[in-house]
């Protein structure tokens, strides 16, 4: 059935092409619906319990989504500069999407003056003289609520905080950034430094980088892939086939995304590149298999270009059908393991990439055999079983020598190395901060640090205290709780600053008490609190207290990027807030950036879960496909080793776990197992023709070295291309995935053969697909009381012999430990006398067994057994069966029991 599927493209060429063309057209219909989304919403876990609280808090106290326009100048507080600043303030206000701008021009100063109090704006307009400018500077720096909030402590930098109207339009952020940037650009000549920082800029830069990645990564990956394949196979056809399958897969995937409403995110921007790279692996294996087929066809004296191609394609399909399906499935499992991630960013990536791999698998199955049978190379490279040359040959020789001479040392060193890397991996930290997605040398990162240094971090979160009683936060006792919480925040030393209603009241209290520092305190009575509050406009207080004074809010600014550190401090803060608030107040600590960072924990949990699922699925799949639990377990070893090495390197180099790097493990396992599957399949096939398993391992490595090294190198180079990405997360993903691919060469060519020689595999598909003469076998005494499945498996662990007419299978006088079961044809049992005469003792036909005495006990054969027609027979070698007793004890035991029965009956 599998062969029929693989040969569809060859035998139903037109139908296959029509299917591909129609599907491509349907996919193309989805392309216009393809959208780009770099919003933060997809970085927050869907089920985050804080989401609702955050929305409620944002509704009550205003959104934490604001842009800061930072202005710095050595002579900022001069009439000219302030006039320019005023123009900038008003120009920003004039933008249609701007809700309000907070800055020194609408900042209210409350200040005690001789015998009275002044409550007025610091500046209504730019002062006309230097005295006015100096007074404004003095007023601004006098107010502790302003310093490090809107004005730097040295007065040389100020912030204009721009609140933007809610807008969900896809392109809004980019348009807003562009318009604000145009205003900022006009102001630039007036100041030493002026720039904007906020969601519009971050989103605009994310989008710009995303488009750049799309333009750069996929073409570069494709070019590298072509060069790598040309280098190893010296065939343009071999190089162009992966490009064609990848191109179609990308088109199908993008079309599906458009139709399914999955937008292109920063992670999905690398999808085309990934498809080019990952999709090529099967193509490379198939091309290598095709070359092997060509060599076999040449050896089989097939002539004519068309016949050669056809024969080579069919041989390739026969050898690669099962491993191709398996590798596609394992890669799909690897990618789709995150399909249920609570993070939209990762979930979308998982779904789209799994679809892409699946689509690529289908296209490969339909198209590659068709193209090879049609246009494939005609000249074989090397002979079957010949040692490969170049890098693959060197790898085979080196790893072969190590395996042969130092197998124990290799295993011990590998185990120790893994131990060391596991220890390094324990140093891993996690981050989901969008700012860390950018490279450190980006102006955006520099600007963010600048704002934090001069003012405070640009990230904001809220601590909200809720009472059931209206006016609760007119009570000094409740306000003191805010003070205690803020003191705790100060003690934590992680966050830049916090502001609350208590600060505003303390300021007025200080000013009504002659500006004495010791009067910086919450007023003593409820009435005084209420009366002081009359000096503020409601909009001054709206971020800090609800209209009915039943809820109070502490606004905290910070610039923490290490999610785990932030989450730890936030957990500690939540505990403290609950403690200080007491049982009569409900508390919430919330903010968009907190939810994004909290998703980092989800990220780790999700990846551990995904890794577990992938390993379990691959274990089950391999155990099932090779009908061996031990085989399933051993198959994981060469996949797990590169992952351990990768995690260790992350710990060693301080690369964090983030939405990009966290996925490397599961994706890499899905890809690295491909090599193992090909090795196992080849080993399985070779084991059927030899009883020397070490020899089979060596042959397997020789056969598979070229595709394993070529695909791993191509994958490493392809993933390495992601280092060119504008996003740190993508670059880190690429670097780690590339390293993992290289580790997988070491694992597959050194460790896999070491562990593989200790197992004997039988492919499930071989068992199910085996054509056997049912009547013959069911009647055979060798298979007495065995199920159909057991019979098939017993056949597969035996050795198949095809003997032409006249040839001896057993020779009288020789020592042989093999027993045979005739599948087809006839043989004579002939005893030769000393004088050379022969006597036919018996004629054997299908289902009959011979050689069982030699199998049981080492003794000389007493007669010849000669084929009188072409014969197919199964050979059960004693030594081999002794080995297989370890691997298939149940079946071998049954066979031995049946052999005893046969002997008993003959005696």
């Amino acid at each position: 059935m599998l062969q029929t599927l693989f040969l569809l493209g060859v035998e139903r060429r037109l139908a296959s092409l029509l299917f591909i063309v129609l599907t491509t057209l349907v996919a193309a219909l989805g392309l216009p619906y393809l959208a780009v989304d770099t919003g933060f919403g997809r970085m927050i876990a869907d089920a985050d319990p804080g989401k609702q609280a955050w929305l409620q808090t944002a509704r009550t106290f205003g959104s934490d989504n604001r842009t800061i326009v930072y202005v710095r100048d050595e002579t900022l507080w001069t009439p000219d500069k302030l006039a320019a600043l005023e123009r900038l303030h008003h120009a920003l206000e004039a933008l249609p999407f701007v809700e309000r701008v907070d800055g020194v021009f609408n900042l209210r100063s409350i200040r005690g003056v001789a015998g009275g109090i002044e409550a007025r704006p610091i500046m209504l307009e730019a002062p006309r003289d230097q005295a006015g400018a100096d007074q404004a500077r003095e007023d601004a720096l006098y107010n502790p609520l302003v310093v490090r909030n809107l004005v730097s402590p040295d007065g040389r930098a100020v912030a204009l905080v721009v609140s933007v109207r809610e807008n969900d339009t896809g392109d809004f952020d980019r348009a807003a950034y562009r318009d604000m940037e145009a205003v900022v650009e006009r102001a630039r000549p007036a100041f030493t430094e002026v720039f904007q920082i906020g969601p519009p800029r971050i989103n605009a830069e994310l989008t710009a980088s995303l488009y750049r990645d799309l333009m750069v990564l996929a073409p570069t990956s494709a070019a590298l892939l072509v060069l790598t394949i040309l280098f190893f196979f010296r065939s343009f056809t071999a190089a162009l086939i992966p490009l064609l399958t990848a191109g179609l897969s990308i088109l199908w995937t993008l079309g599906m995304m458009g139709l399914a409403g999955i937008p292109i995110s920063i992670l999905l921007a690398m999808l085309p590149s990934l498809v080019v790279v990952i999709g090529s692996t099967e193509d490379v294996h198939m091309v290598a298999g095709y070359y092997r087929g060509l060599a076999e066809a040449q050896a089989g004296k097939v002539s004519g270009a068309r016949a050669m191609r056809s024969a080579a394609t069919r041989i390739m399909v026969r050898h690669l059908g099962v491993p191709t399906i398996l590798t596609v499935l394992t890669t799909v499992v690897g990618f789709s393991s995150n399909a249920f991630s609570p993070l939209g960013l990762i979930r979308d990536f998982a779904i789209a990439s799994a679809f892409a791999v699946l689509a690529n698998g289908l296209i490969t199955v339909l198209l590659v055999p068709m193209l090879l049978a049609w246009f494939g190379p005609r000249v074989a490279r090397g002979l079957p079983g010949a040692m490969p040359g170049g890098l693959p040959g060197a790898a085979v020789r080196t790893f072969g020598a190590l395996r042969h001479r130092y197998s124990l040392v290799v295993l011990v060193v590998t185990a120790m190395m893994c131990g060391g890397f596991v220890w390094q991996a324990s140093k891993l930290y996690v981050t989901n901060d969008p700012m860390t997605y950018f490279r450190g040398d980006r102006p955006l990162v520099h600007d963010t640090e600048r704002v934090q240094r001069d003012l405070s971090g640009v990230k904001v979160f809220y601590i909200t205290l809720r009472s059931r009683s209206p006016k609760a936060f007119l009570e000094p006792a409740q306000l003191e709780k805010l003070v205690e919480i803020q003191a705790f925040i100060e003690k934590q030393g992680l966050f830049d600053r916090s502001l609350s209603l208590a600060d505003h009241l303390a300021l007025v209290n200080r000013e009504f008490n002659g500006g004495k520092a010791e009067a910086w305190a919450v007023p003593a009575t409820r009435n005084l609190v209420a009366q002081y509050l009359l000096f503020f406009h409601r909009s001054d207080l709206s971020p800090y207290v609800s209209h009915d004074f039943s809820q109070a809010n502490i606004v905290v600014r910070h610039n923490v990027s290490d999610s785990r550190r932030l989450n730890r401090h936030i957990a500690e803060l939540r505990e403290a807030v609950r403690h200080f608030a007491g049982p009569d107040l409900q508390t919430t600590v919330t903010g968009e950036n907190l939810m994004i960072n909290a998703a980092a924990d989800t990220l780790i949990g999700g990846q551990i879960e995904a890794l577990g699922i992938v390993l379990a699925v691959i274990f089950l799949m391999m155990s099932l496909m090779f009908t061996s639990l031990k085989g399933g377990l051993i198959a994981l070893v060469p996949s797990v080793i590169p992952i351990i090495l990768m995690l260790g390197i992350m710990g060693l180099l301080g690369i964090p776990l983030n939405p990009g790097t966290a996925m490397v493990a599961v994706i890499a396992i899905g890809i690295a197992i491909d090599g193992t599957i090909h090795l196992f399949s080849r080993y399985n096939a070779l084991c059927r023709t030899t009883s020397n398993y070490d020899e089979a391992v060596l042959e397997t490595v020789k056969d598979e070295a070229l595709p394993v090294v070529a695909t791993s190198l191509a994958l490493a180079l392809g993933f390495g291309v992601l280092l060119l990405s504008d996003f740190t997360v993508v670059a880190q993903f690429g670097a780690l995935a590339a390293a993992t691919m290289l580790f997988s060469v070491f694992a597959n060519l050194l460790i896999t053969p070491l562990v593989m020689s200790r197992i004997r595999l039988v492919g499930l598909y071989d068992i199910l697909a085996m054509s056997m003469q049912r009547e013959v076998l069911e009647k055979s005494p060798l298979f007495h009381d065995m199920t159909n499945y057991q019979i098939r498996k017993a056949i597969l662990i035996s050795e198949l012999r095809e003997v032409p007419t006249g040839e001896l299978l057993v020779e009288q006088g020789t020592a042989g430990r093999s027993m045979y079961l005739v599948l087809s044809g006839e043989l004579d049992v002939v005893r030769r006398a000393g004088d050379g005469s022969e006597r036919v003792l018996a004629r054997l036909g299908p289902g009959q067994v011979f050689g069982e005495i030699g199998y049981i006990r080492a003794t000389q054969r007493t007669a010849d057994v000669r084929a009188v027609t072409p014969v197919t027979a199964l050979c059960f070698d004693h030594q081999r069966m002794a080995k297989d007793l370890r691997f298939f004890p149940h079946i071998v035991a049954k066979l031995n029991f049946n052999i005893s029965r046969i002997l008993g009956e003959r005696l």
Partner: protein
Amino acid sequence: MKLSRHGLLLAVLQLALCAGLPQVARAAGAATPEAPAVKRDARALMEASVRRHQHDPYVYEEQALILIDAAGNRSVRKARFFLRVEADRRMRMLLVFDDPEEVRGVALLAERGAARMAKSAVYLPALAGGMVTGSADTRGSHFLGTDFAIEDLVVEATEDWNYRIEGTREIGRVPHWVVRAEPRDADAAATTGHGARRHWLRKDTLFIVRTDYLDRRGRLVKRQSWRDLRRIDADSWRADMVLMEDFREQHKTLVKVERRVLSQDYVPAALFEPAWLQARRHLLPVSPDAATAAAPAGGARN
């Protein structure tokens, strides 16, 4: 009668909170002839408006101040308002909060002389000492948490402004003059936190039903509207409801006049002395006898 500059200035001193601009009301929707005695000259229109509706020197009002935020949340304060124009042409006003309990007794005292400068003081009962003087420069500041600045409470001095008729517009089918006012000079400009203003005067009565406050770049930042107009006498009208909208802060203050008395008995001169406040006498009804005879909102003269 022609008013002197100072007389005119004093005459136009009016609190928006008490709907101080006398207006001429008419039935909504009915076509009304233009006020006959006014030339179609912007300054003449403004001066006529002031002249018709500014002649009450003693005003007492009981008000509800309703503060409305962007989300529509409301908080209500009750207050008493006193206005007195002295013979020496000084205008003095006092606003006393009665409710909610926490701010009961808080008082704002403001005085404006013939010159442009104003002085103010605040009395906070919960504060030791109680009385605190306010800033002389109140431009752009808000008035005890409302959307009014003290300068908004004072009707502009027409001699400080240049006027230009921008045209006529209808509000609810009632034709209005739209008059643009701009500070006459830099000194005049320095007295205001805003730039130009745009007044909407009913053509029939010269009642200003709306004033738009523009910033220095001509953008609308605040709007004061007078509603529930009530006739005081043949030519004079007052509004029982005043709405101030601050578009930048997205906040509104609605003043509802629940009771109004235009009587000297309700605004004795002693009320405006700091000592009166410090003795907490402002917390007591000024004239219980008069209070019982006082008219409901709309105004009554004794």
